[in-house]
């Protein structure tokens, strides 16, 4: 069902490694937390395995708010995955 899909955005070298700017994804059963999402993404294919090889360094935003890996995903409309920030 389309309304169950969530938009996932990738930035910086994560975007380059997975080869996508963003995509619509149906969240699999059992993926309830940020940490579980990262494990699932890592197992999708070789490109995702390369992007998420070190999940502990990945930053995650749920509906544009920073989230901890232990946090429940809830029902966001947008999830962003990116490396530590280097602005300024």
């Amino acid at each position: 069902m389309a309304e169950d899909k969530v938009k996932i955005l990738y930035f910086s070298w994560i975007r380059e490694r997975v080869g996508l700017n963003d995509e619509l994804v149906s969240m699999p059963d059992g993926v309830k937390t940020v940490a579980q999402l990262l494990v699932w993404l890592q197992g999708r294919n070789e490109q995702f395995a390369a992007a998420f090889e070190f999940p502990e360094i990945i930053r995650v935003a749920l509906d544009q708010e920073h989230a901890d890996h232990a946090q429940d995903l809830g029902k966001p409309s947008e999830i962003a995955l990116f490396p530590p920030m280097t602005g300024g």
Partner: protein
Amino acid sequence: MATKPIVRVQCDDFDQAAEIRDLVASNHDIGAIATFIGLCRSEGESLSALELEHYPGMAESQMENCASAACERWPIDKMLVIHRYGVIQPGEQIVLVVAASRHRDAAFDGARYVMDFLKTDAPFWKKEHRSDGAAGQWVDARDSDETAKERWK
């Protein structure tokens, strides 16, 4: 009520003199302005540019969070934060923070606080363009940027 900061994310360069003039024009009780400007470095001429990527929407909201927190913590009358994106050459400006207050302490502290938090919280990433044409790397985050925030605890 705390001052509401002005936050902009833009591709174009900025003119700090014009920005400061506009920011403080309506308030004649401002006695101190602290300005921070971040520039693109060449790293000993090894880089021809930095390419800045950002997360539109969240970049603005995180900059606003950092700037609003400063305005709540110190008596700041005007606050402006501008961050550029796109391809920026060595010597060009990347970021501007202007904090204006009656007295200097709030202006100095407010500007520094905004930069310390913007570095680790605002979703921007820098990719190097190398002068020798080799593939550029993404800039690594520095641990010192995380520890810089500790001074405000």
